[in-house]
């Protein structure tokens, strides 16, 4: 992706954990080598607050700055330009939200931002609706990866529209990564079996009763789903087909 090779198809978020230690351990167990991070104000009154970079080494794990919380193109551009200044990263995740309750992306603002960021040399991974037409327009605007939602962010509903994801898969050679809405490890397997190149998970791991175990479950689920996809599944049939030979029955 963006001319760089990564070893894991699982990208994990670093939000919503109980502590930095828990977050760092879950990431390690997930095997992810890309993590999403947010850009926020430094707390100038409490300098002893732990820093993410002290727990997750950006030299070992690729930080993917995200514009989470931005509702306009202007805010998203400002955030990512600042992110580039912190670490010199060009690989970023664009997310422009349109509604505070359902957190669906505002695709008009997202499209505008993708065009500007691509021209500025960013490698933009774009959070978007599961709309094949909009995915195509993002691709034509220079997106580096298409990241359709499975369901609303943090909802845990799993992939709601498999057909749309399959259509997007068939029309693009860009990395296709399911972002948002997964609830359990099997959701990640389904995403991979649909032919997606990866999944991004945050809440489903961070808010699981046992985040460390869930991180491992997602790791395995992504590997299993990818293997299953590459193995070529059997055709679906209405009637049964016996597994044992009918010849030689006593």
């Amino acid at each position, binding site marked *: 992706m963006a001319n760089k090779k990564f070893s894991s198809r699982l990208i994990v978020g670093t939000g919503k954990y109980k502590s930095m230690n828990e977050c760092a351990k879950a990431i390690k167990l997930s095997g992810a080598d890309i993590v999403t991070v947010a850009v926020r*104000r*430094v707390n100038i009154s409490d300098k002893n607050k732990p820093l993410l*970079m002290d727990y997750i080494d950006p030299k070992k794990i690729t930080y993917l700055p*995200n514009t989470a919380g931005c509702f306009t193109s202007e805010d998203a551009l400002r955030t990512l330009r*600042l992110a580039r200044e912190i670490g010199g990263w060009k690989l970023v995740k664009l997310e422009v939200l349109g509604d505070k309750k359902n957190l669906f992306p505002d695709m008009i603002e997202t499209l505008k931002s993708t065009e500007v960021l691509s021209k500025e040399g960013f490698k933009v991974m774009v959070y978007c609706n599961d709309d094949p037409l909009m995915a195509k327009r993002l691709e034509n605007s220079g997106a580096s990866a298409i990241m359709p939602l499975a369901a609303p*962010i943090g909802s845990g509903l799993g992939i709601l529209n498999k057909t749309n994801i399959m259509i997007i898969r068939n029309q693009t050679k860009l990395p296709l990564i399911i972002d948002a809405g997964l609830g359990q490890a099997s959701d990640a397997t389904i995403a991979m079996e649909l032919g997606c190149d990866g999944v991004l998970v945050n809440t489903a791991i961070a808010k699981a009763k046992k985040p460390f175990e869930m991180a491992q479950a997602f790791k395995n689920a992504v590997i299993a789903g990818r293997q299953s996809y590459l193995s070529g599944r059997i055709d679906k049939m209405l009637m049964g087909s016996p597994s044992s030979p009918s010849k030689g029955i006593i």
Partner: protein
Amino acid sequence: MKKLKKIKIKINGKIKTIIDKLTLYELINDLKIPIRKVAIELNKEIINKKEIKKIKLENNDVIEIVHFIGGG
């Protein structure tokens, strides 16, 4: 001794009184902020961190200092 002139700036949304002619570098150092791990905006313009020793702060300057935190 001549009394130092003071100015008011806004940093990360909070008003702060500082001495006049303080550089951005001195302010960030005083606040013990690790420069390598942050990005700085002065009056909505992103600042090249190599330039901060040359930038003298003025009255009503608005500064934003951001870093990476956990997020989805």
